[in-house]
Structures are given as structure tokens and as C-alpha cells.
């Protein structure tokens, strides 16, 4: 078989090390959360916050990654940029889903209703839908849809500030009654630890996903090369 840098890349120890670190962080996180001080008004329910907000961090990082990588892909045709764009979109959708389920659960337990058009949740919902649309286009748009999806990714990311402002103004006309309490002193450490854990998880997933796409492209090339040999 012709060697064009084909096959599995040589083993690197960064990935398993990262995986172990991430697993450790995520395993320890609940311990920290359990030990964190209980918030006075919402009691135990508030602790969902420690996963809810880091999930948003990852979602928006994914969304902006998709936007920037899409822009790069459109203008340089770099396949690597396309892989990062796809990964960013998938992260945005998956972690957006985490945020959009933990949010209403928290709201229901804390304030009695599932959804109250809170500005941040609504913003997240719209951004989430935009990146689901990105994935639908890639899946169902036929050949060449990776290029088209890059346009959607770029526009979707550029749209985020506009959605943020329009939803915010929309909501401030009818002010909300529930207020998210600010972080007490003992909670900050736990919060940032959870953010770190999620960021590690995100890095791990990005590495794995980009690697998977790279292998897919290599597989296509191998198919083509094998055809030549026949």
C-alpha cells in the first residue's frame, strides 16, 4: 500500500493524559459541589448552577469556534478549518442541550415554571437552533454542503450579539421577578473548578472529533488510492 501519511497517526501521549485528567476533574467535581455552601434561598437546587453555567461557556466557545473556523474555511479552503467548524457546531448543540435541560429543571424547582423567556435562556435557545440548522444542512444538503454550512456558521456566530441585544431589550420591557443570586465566597472555587473541568472535557472532545474527521478524510483518500491500484 502506498504510504501517503496514511493509516493511524503515531501514538501521542497527550490524548490519554488529557482524558485521565478530565475524568479526574469530572469525578471530583461532584465532591466539591456537595461540599460547597448551600445557597440560602434556593437551597439544594441552586447547585445545578455548577454544571449549567460551564455548559454555556462550552456552548458559546463552540459557537464562536464554528464561526471563526467557517470564515477561515470559506476563504482558504483549509480542510482543517472545516473540521474545527463542524466540531464547534456539534459542541454547541450538545452542550447547548445540556444547558437547555438544566436551565428549565432549575427554573421549575426554584420558581415553579419551566420556561419564562428569560433573556439568557432565550438567547441560548436561538443560538442552539442556528447550529442545529448548520448540522442539518451538512447532513441533508448533499455534496458541497460543507461550504454552504460554513456560510451559515459564520452568519450564526456574527448574529450572536444581535440576538443578545434584541432579546435583552425585548425582555427588559417586562422585567423579570426571579433573580439569580450572585456567588457567595465559598462557591467561587467550586464554580471555577467546574468551569475548568468542562473546558478540559471540551478540549478532549475537540481533539477526538477533529481526529475522527481527519481519519475520515484519510479513509476517503485510501479508497481513491486503492482504486488506482486496481
Amino acid at each position: 500500500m502506498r504510504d501517503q501519511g496514511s493509516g493511524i497517526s503515531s501514538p501521542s501521549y497527550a490524548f490519554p493524559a488529557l482524558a485521565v485528567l478530565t475524568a479526574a476533574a469530572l469525578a471530583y467535581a461532584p465532591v466539591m459541589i456537595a461540599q460547597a455552601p448551600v445557597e440560602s434561598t434556593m437551597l439544594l437546587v441552586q447547585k445545578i448552577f455548577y454544571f449549567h453555567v460551564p455548559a454555556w461557556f462550552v456552548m458559546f466557545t463552540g459557537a464562536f469556534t464554528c464561526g471563526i473556523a467557517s470564515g477561515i474555511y470559506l476563504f482558504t479552503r483549509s480542510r482543517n478549518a472545516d473540521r474545527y467548524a463542524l466540531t464547534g457546531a456539534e459542541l454547541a448543540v450538545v452542550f447547548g442541550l445540556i444547558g437547555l435541560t438544566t436551565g428549565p429543571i432549575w427554573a421549575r424547582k426554584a420558581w415553579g415554571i419551566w420556561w419564562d423567556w428569560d433573556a439568557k435562556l432565550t438567547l441560548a435557545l436561538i443560538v442552539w437552533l442556528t447550529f442545529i440548522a448548520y448540522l442539518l444542512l451538512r447532513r441533508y444538503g448533499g455534496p458541497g454542503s460543507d461550504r454552504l454550512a460554513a456560510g451559515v456558521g459564520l452568519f450564526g456566530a456574527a448574529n450572536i450579539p444581535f440576538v443578545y441585544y434584541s432579546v435583552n431589550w425585548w425582555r427588559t420591557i417586562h422585567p423579570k421577578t426571579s433573580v439569580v443570586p450572585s456567588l457567595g465566597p465559598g462557591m467561587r472555587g467550586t464554580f471555577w473548578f467546574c468551569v475548568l473541568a468542562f473546558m478540559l472535557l471540551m478540549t478532549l472532545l475537540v481533539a477526538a472529533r477533529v481526529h475522527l474527521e481527519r481519519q475520515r478524510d484519510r479513509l476517503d483518500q485510501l479508497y481513491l488510492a486503492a482504486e488506482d491500484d486496481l
Partner: protein
Amino acid sequence: MDFESLTFSDVTRTYGRRRALHRVSLTCGAGEVVALLGANGAGKSTLLSIAATLIEPTSGEVRFGQATGRTAGPALRARIGLLAHDLYLYPELSAAENLEFFARLYRRGDVTHRVDTALCAAGLADRRDEPVAGFSRGMRQRLAIERALLHEPRLVLLDEPFTGLDDRSVMALQDRISALGRAGCIVLLTTHDLEAAEAVAERAVVLTRGRLVPIEPGPTPLRERYRRASPA
């Protein structure tokens, strides 16, 4: 801008796992009429689209004289004429209106005269104000050919130009193509009609599953040489 040759260098075009073109290399000079033959799905239309700068090759490059396809701009496109399988005609507009639109789009002066000449050449002068939607396939084909040649392009790309034409029209088109060659145009045409191709093309090449194979010139009929060059 102008150019005297069209060169494909190792042009490859893939769609995921499907390879439409594999390292195609071909050079055509001014005044040459080259017939591009091959079975359906062999990649002929893709190659023409790449020559028209509508599609980018996955690897390799196309050169128009010294300029590359990648850096192509409007100036290059002004010198290219493409007749594609879809005829690029607006069915709601009349024959004359279609030609006028494209003449203006290609910045050609003397629009009325140009359009009249083209309509006569297509044999549609008496149907000039009828909407194209009512034309037969052959009439549309003749009009589309004129549309592609309206701006006197240097590079003429014809995808199955003989489709739907009756015998008289085929001969007229053959004369037209030969005249284009004599005038210094680079003509690249694809067809299944080997006899029609033989009459106008000095050179013929075959695309078989994306690979280009030249057909040696010789006294034997094109059909025989084609069959030899492209085993089933």
C-alpha cells in the same frame, strides 16, 4: 485579456470518495478543435465546468495562457463561452430578449446588430419575439449555441452541442465550429455523436472514469479508434 492556450495540469476533482477526474493533463492551442469523448458519467461535463472556472479542481491547476484559473476574474470570464447541458435560457423571455440580455451582460456594443446576426445564424429570425418556453429542443439548442458565441469568446466550450439538432442544423453547426477553429478560437467539445465530431475535430481524447487517454490520429474511422482507446 487574451490567451493562446488552455492547459490542464494534473487536474483532479473528487467528491468525497467519488473521483470525477484523475490527474487530467491536456493542452489545447488557439485554432484547435478538440473532441472530448467518453461514456456517460466519465467526467466530461466536470472538465468543461472546470475550464469555465465554475468549479475548482481539488488539486492541479488550469492555465489560460499564463493566467491561472484560481486567480480568474471577470476579464477572463469575458473570453470564455460555455454551452452546457442546461441551456441557460430564460423561458419567459423571447429569443431576442434572451440574446439582448446576454449581449449587454457581456458588455458587447452594437447590441441590435449582434442579436440580429445571431438570430439569423440560429435560423430563428422569424420567431424572435416568441417566448423560448414554446421552442422545441432543437430550436433552443440553436439559440443556446448563439448565446454562447455572442461575445466572440476565445475559449469555446460545448457540451453535447449536437443534441436535438436535425441533419441540416448539424451541418450548419459543424461549419460554424470549423470557422471558429480557423478564426483562432480554442474549441473543446464533448459529444456522443462520433461522426459529427470526426468532421470537425482534428484531435480527440477519451475520458474513462476520470482518466484522460488520447486517441491517435489516423486514417481509420474515429469510432474504431475510440473503441480501441477505451476498453469497455
